[in-house]
């Protein structure tokens, strides 16, 4: 059997897979494949289209719509609800519901994950800036100015794979503040709405003021380059996933690292996030065996390894004791799983590749948002 879910970025990743292989060694020979996050959707779709997919795939439950619509994911509801919902009750229900579409479960969660800002406290102290638990975009820009002027380093870094977070978090925060979040997630708000315009202008402001490492070229910086700059003290803030807290803190040897919430463009904070999770392709060879694999991997025994390494597990029978992870968990209150970005693959792709870079590099607002509006209308019609 093939398990496409080995997460090498987590220190627990290989250990969990080894524990699952050990649990099932008498029944199945399990090959595990490392998750290619940057190309995950393509990898999964290629596997499914080939007719010989992996038996289990890693994917974000909140982003499963593309597979659910194409009937490419197995309905896990009967398995979850069997024996009085024994398996279902083992999960954090909020995280489990992220993989629920039209009343059916298509993915199960591994652990919560969302966008946060890691802060170099020493640089903040030098610039006389407090590490905030909550802050608006204006406060974020003020802090960035102080950091640039007083500490002489770049205030903020984000890798190009994560760049869409700037726009997604902005749209969500403004959406929540204006009471339009549900309408946005349902695709009912046109891209000509002032929310999108404000988001684009705010991001361009960050770029034009050279607060975004390394100034010119910020749009093409890789995630590794952004991390390296943060570790080297060239950057005061790094945008990254909450789940990688242990890795980032251990990578930033000697630095005083803290975690801050994402700056909100609206009055209320809202950050993108949800869960890392797993699903079974609808054309998996042996569906019952695939479910057995999932149950083993997400069992309390295996998930304890995840928690012991300092990660927040979705299995409620496993407790998190690490104080850093506990502090990150407090920030998860602002997480919004349903967002405009997930309306359809063409909209996600536009956010990933064009929205920010087109506008920052000189395309007019009407051109950029006009294209987004066209995609929104196409997606709704489909």
């Amino acid at each position, binding site marked *: 059997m093939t398990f496409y879910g080995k997460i090498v970025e987590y220190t627990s990743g290989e250990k969990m897979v080894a524990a699952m292989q050990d649990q099932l060694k008498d029944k199945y020979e399990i090959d595990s494949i490392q998750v290619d996050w940057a190309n995950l959707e393509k990898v999964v779709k290629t596997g499914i289209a080939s007719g010989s997919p992996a038996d289990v795939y890693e994917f974000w439950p909140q982003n499963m719509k593309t597979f659910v619509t194409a009937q490419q994911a197995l309905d896990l509801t009967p398995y979850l609800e069997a024996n009085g919902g024994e398996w279902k009750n083992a999960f954090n229900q909020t995280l489990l519901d992220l993989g629920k579409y039209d009343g059916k479960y298509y993915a199960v969660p591994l652990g919560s994950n969302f966008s946060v800002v890691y802060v170099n406290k020493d640089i903040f102290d030098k610039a006389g800036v407090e590490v905030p638990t909550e802050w608006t975009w204006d406060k974020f820009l003020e802090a960035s100015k102080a950091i640039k002027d007083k500490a002489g380093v770049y205030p903020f870094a984000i890798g190009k794979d994560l760049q869409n977070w700037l726009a997604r978090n902005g749209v969500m925060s403004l959406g929540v503040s204006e009471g339009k979040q549900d309408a946005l997630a349902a695709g009912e708000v046109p891209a000509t709405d002032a929310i999108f315009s404000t988001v684009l202008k705010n991001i361009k402001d960050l770029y034009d003021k050279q607060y975004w490492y390394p100034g010119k*070229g910020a749009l*093409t910086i890789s995630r590794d380059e952004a991390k390296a700059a943060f570790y080297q003290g060239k950057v005061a803030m790094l945008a990254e996933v909450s789940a990688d807290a242990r890795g980032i803190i251990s990578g930033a040897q000697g630095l005083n690292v803290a975690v801050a919430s994402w700056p909100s463009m609206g009055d209320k904070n809202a950050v993108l996030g949800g869960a890392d999770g797993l699903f079974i392709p609808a054309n998996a060879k042996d569906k019952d065996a695939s479910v057995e694999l999932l149950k083993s991997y997400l069992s309390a025994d295996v998930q304890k390894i995840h928690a012991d390494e300092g990660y927040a597990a979705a299995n409620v029978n496993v407790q998190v004791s690490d104080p850093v992870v506990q502090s990150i968990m407090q920030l998860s209150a602002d997480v919004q799983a349903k967002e405009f970005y997930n309306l359809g693959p063409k909209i996600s792709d536009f956010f990933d590749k*064009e929205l920010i870079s087109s506008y920052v590099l000189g395309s007019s607002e009407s051109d950029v948002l006009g294209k987004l509006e066209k995609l929104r209308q196409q997606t709704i019609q489909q």
Partner: protein
Amino acid sequence: MMNSSPDARIRGRSAVSWTGIAFLLPALAFISFSIFIPTVWNLLLSFQQWDGFKDRKWIGLRNYTESLKDPDVLHSLYHSIFLAVMITLLSVIVGLALAAFVFRLGRKEGSFYRLVLFMPVMLPVAIIGLLFTFMYNPEMGLVNQFLRLIGAGALADAWLENPDTVLWAIVVVGVWRMSGLTMMLIFAAMQNIPQSLFESARLEGAGYARQFFSIVLPLVKPILQLSVVFTLVMSFKTYDLVFVMTEGGPANLSKTIPLQMIDSAFTFNEFGYSAAMGFLLTLAVMLIISLTSRLLRGESYEY
């Protein structure tokens, strides 16, 4: 005594043909499965709507008419053609110049330079892409550091972000990679030119430049044509280099048709549309190769 009657010769040729065909069968089967069958499958798919999972639906020419109206497809097609033509043109010019220089070197230093200049052709494209991504890094990259070192810091740029430089930055890498191939082919062809032609030219007072343009260039034209066609085909297929260096960005400003095809098929679940794009690219490649072959058609000389 050998039987030399016409019937026997025909029988002999026939036996040889069957042996030849038998030897070619494995290669034919491999090529059929890896090229001919996928090509026909791709052509059929281009007339269908298919999400990669559910039943396929015949939709006639709709994929073609829509892709020819789609600005994203047209931009990607333009980027593919721009990269292929520029990489080919420049790498052939550079390759020719390198061959001309290397031809003048002694045996040992000639071998050394040929090895060094041919090495990029042998390197994996992913490695080359990564190498140049680091070199183009706006802050720490070798290119900008060198410019700062020589006091030309004002020219330092974000080469892979600037819409005016991103395609040219990829062209430079393509030329670096492919010019060694042209050099090697032209150099090999130059080796076959009789020394007496150069000696006669020298006696007539022609310098090396004149000898190169009046003797070498006309005589190596068939090889030059081969090199151009080969480089064009390789450059048109550019997927890995662009993917590693820019992933088609920023803002799809360097996205080529192969990248657009992958997105259409595996992100948007539009396999038929993707197949139509592939066929349009094939037509563009065939057209440009046939034009190039016509332009570079040279005479064959015997010497």
